[in-house]
């Protein structure tokens, strides 16, 4: 029973990882790639680690996997935000058909 549930969680995680990496290849500019791939891959890795926790329970491996989940959440999102800010200040152009640019007054005066 536990193995089946953990297999379902791991399968969902691998599917999310797949769509995130597909967005990493297909989307047009760096901001789109960053927002697609970071969210999807973070959630997919969360699901894989939660499947590990379900399979092993409260043993050493399970608790370490459970500890790794908030670490991945905060680390990946903070890193993606810092990377986006650095790319904007560096002057990477947005896509031609992008609509909204809220940071123009603040950082590109």
């Amino acid at each position, binding site marked *: 029973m536990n193995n089946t549930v953990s*297999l379902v969680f*791991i*399968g969902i*995680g*691998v599917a999310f*990882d*797949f769509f*995130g*990496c*597909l967005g*990493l*290849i297909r989307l047009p500019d*760096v901001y789109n*790639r*960053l927002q697609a*791939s*970071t969210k999807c*891959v*973070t959630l*997919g*890795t969360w699901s*894989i*680690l939660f499947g*590990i926790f379900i*399979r092993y329970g409260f043993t*050493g*491996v399970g608790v*370490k*996997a459970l*500890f*790794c989940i908030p*670490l*991945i959440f905060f*680390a*990946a999102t*903070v*890193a*993606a935000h*810092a*990377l986006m*800010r*650095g*790319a904007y*200040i*560096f002057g*990477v152009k947005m896509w031609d058909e992008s609509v909204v640019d809220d940071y123009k007054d603040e950082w590109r005066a």
Partner: protein
Amino acid sequence: MSLIEIFLYILVGLSFFCLFRIIRGPTIADRMVGIDIFGILVVGICALLVIITGRTFIIDIAITWAILSFIATLTLAKYLSGKKLNE
């Protein structure tokens, strides 16, 4: 070949997507995005290796890789925005 091994091969194939973006990226920020996503993917690969091999120390490698990838991405982003590392 069990289902877990198929998932492992899918994840290893996805890391080649990141490698494609690292090689072909038009700007330097694209390469950094590839490195960041690859760092998160490796955590999932290590978690699957725990099930396949049964050696439980590999989850420690996953935690360490997550922290090191976070620090590396922050450092590269700081460098990209044109500041010194102690500001």
